[in-house]
């Protein structure tokens, strides 16, 4: 075990908080959250959202921090080791830990691709290649070359940029720039992990977090000082806020005309609102995708993880509700009116089609476009880095190799998976399959597994003791009860409801889509690989523990 990174720690508490918050703050905060609020009842959506924050995000996140730090004290930094040691060295639980690594591994394979889009757009705005020509959302028939002038033109530009019309489109001359940016993003992510948690991830997070805040503040000030830029009724800043926050909603037809009203009660009694709110919390706080527990495993033994956990969650919510709530929807309503609402359903549509239209019409729009996409890029880099670290930690433990070699192995496998996403871009079918199974389905599944581990195999009392270790404010006694009897049943109910709503349709569509089938085969291969590697690694650990029972005593004594 001489190769285990036993002495690697975060440099400071604020450093780990920023790193974990940076891991959570991403596209979901700035694009997905506002879209979900608009589509699921505006202000009424916030009630199930806050409930999910209180009974899922905060307790499950704390239990994940506790699990990570507990495993880190015992010399383990990968989810495999965490599940193994927390369950009392049971291989059945360890296998689940090993398989859970598929979540960060596979999400990162397409997330870096999206990250590259953001940088590509930021560079385009910086270079003046998406310069405004003063046409509106649905006016005109487009621009010449890269001088874009309408919603159609931005949609066409986005499609061509990401190669949505044909598989392999990015491997032609026109796609080379984006491909180069993808490779640069991969290199940046793995380089930071190679430099280590303190010298790489923490330093970068400390640099990027204020930058994200500055970019967001710049955008907010610009939006709040626009007044009513079009002079049209119902398109002021307050109207934009109202579109997002009013609990009683107006229902629109396809032409943007009001056809009825939806009350807050109707919204709250709709189970889909609760499902959407819980999914958003999950997506946003990044719980149970191995990132938080891996980061926590590098926390020092007596650090206050109760405060760190709560601070990271609070920072993420601050960015999501305050910054995310103000940046995307209000300007879209101010410049494009209610007809822009069709573009709020999808994060990609909102970010890469609707908002470029807004920037075109906005004074200082080109600068705002650059700042916005740079903000998205910065937020996504800190998120994607957190997805790389668990995989690298796993390979270090499995292969007993140096960090450099582990980074190299992870990067090679990562590129193989990313190739599927980057090649099969037609209709974004591969990305959609990766996203559905590993950003929507798998986190719910592994959240149930991980919370069950904390509740039964590890024990909520041990979990509470771990949270209390070094904590200035002791965690409440009911935390253990909440994790076991509230969070877990709530997760189960939401997961069952989600599966009944989505699985059948998805399986039917997969049967007709060869790219989705190829993606499933890749996932199975990944599971088999992780299963075999986890089993071999745990067998070796058992043999070592039999030979030298006190091999970890030095670590446990910390």
């Amino acid at each position, binding site marked *: 075990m001489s*190769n285990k*990174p*036993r*002495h*690697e*720690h*975060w*440099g*400071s*508490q*604020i450093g780990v*908080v920023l790193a974990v918050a940076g891991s959570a703050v991403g596209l979901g905060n700035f694009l997905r959250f506002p879209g979900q609020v608009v589509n699921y009842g*505006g*202000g*009424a959506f*916030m009630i199930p959202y*806050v409930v999910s924050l209180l009974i899922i995000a905060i307790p499950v996140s704390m239990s994940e921090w506790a699990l990570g730090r507990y495993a880190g004290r015992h010399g383990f930094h990968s989810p495999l080791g965490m599940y193994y040691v927390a369950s009392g060295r049971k291989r059945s639980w360890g296998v689940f830990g090993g398989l859970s690594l598929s979540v960060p591994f596979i999400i990162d394979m397409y997330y870096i691709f999206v990250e590259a889009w953001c940088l590509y757009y930021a560079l385009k705005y910086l270079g003046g290649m998406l310069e405004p020509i003063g046409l509106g959302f649905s006016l005109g028939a487009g621009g010449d070359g890269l001088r874009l002038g309408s919603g159609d033109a931005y949609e066409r530009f986005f499609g061509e940029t990401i190669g949505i019309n044909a598989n392999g489109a990015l491997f032609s001359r026109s796609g080379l720039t984006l491909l180069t940016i993808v490779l640069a993003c991969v290199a940046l992510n793995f380089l930071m992990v190679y430099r*280590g948690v*303190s*010298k790489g991830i*923490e330093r970068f997070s400390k640099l990027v977090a204020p930058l994200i805040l500055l970019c967001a503040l710049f955008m907010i000030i610009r939006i709040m000082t626009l007044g009513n830029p079009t002079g049209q009724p119902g398109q002021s800043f*307050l*109207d934009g*806020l*109202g579109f*997002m*926050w*009013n*609990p*009683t909603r107006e229902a629109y037809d396809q032409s943007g005309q009001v056809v009825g009203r939806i009350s*807050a009660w109707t919204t709250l009694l709709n189970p889909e609102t609760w499902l959407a709110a819980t999914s958003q919390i999950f997506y946003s706080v990044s719980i149970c995708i191995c990132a938080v527990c891996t980061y926590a495993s590098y926390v*020092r033994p*007596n*650090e*206050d993880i109760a*405060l760190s956990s*709560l*601070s990271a969650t*609070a*920072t993420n*919510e*601050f960015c*999501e*509700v*305050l910054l995310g*709530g103000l940046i995307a929807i209000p300007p879209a309503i101010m410049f494009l009116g209610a007809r822009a609402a069709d573009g709020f359903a999808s994060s990609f549509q909102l970010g890469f089609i609707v908002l470029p239209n807004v920037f075109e019409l906005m004074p200082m729009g080109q600068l705002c476009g650059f700042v916005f996409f740079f903000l998205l890029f910065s937020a996504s880099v800190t998120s994607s880095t957190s997805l790389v670290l668990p995989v690298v930690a796993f390979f270090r433990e499995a292969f007993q190799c*140096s*960090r450099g070699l582990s980074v190299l192995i992870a990067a090679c496998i990562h590129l193989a998976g990313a190739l599927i996403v980057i090649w099969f871009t037609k209709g974004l079918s591969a990305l959609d399959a990766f996203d559905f199974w590993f950003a929507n389905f798998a986190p719910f599944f592994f959240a149930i597994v991980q919370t069950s581990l904390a509740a039964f195999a590890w024990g909520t009392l041990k979990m509470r003791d771990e949270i209390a270790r*070094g904590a*200035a*404010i002791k965690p409440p006694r009911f935390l253990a009860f909440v994790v076991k009897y509230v969070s877990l049943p709530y997760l189960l109910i939401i997961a069952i409801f989600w599966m009944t709503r989505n699985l059948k349709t998805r399986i039917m569509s997969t049967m007709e889509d060869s790219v989705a089938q190829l993606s499933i085969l890749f996932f199975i291969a990944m599971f088999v690989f992780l299963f075999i590697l986890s089993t071999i690694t745990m067998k070796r650990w058992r043999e070592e523990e039999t030979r030298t029972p006190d091999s970890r005593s030095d670590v446990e004594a910390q």
Partner: protein
Amino acid sequence: MTIGGWISMTTSLAIVIGLFGWCMYKLVTTKDANAEEEPADTPKE
């Protein structure tokens, strides 16, 4: 924006800003356990 919109927005913002502010205050005023230990070091390969 309706009164309901104002209420839901200000309540939501008050919750997140309050929680964030309290956490930042505690982070700044609570003694960092790291300061008492050795500085962050690189892994011993």
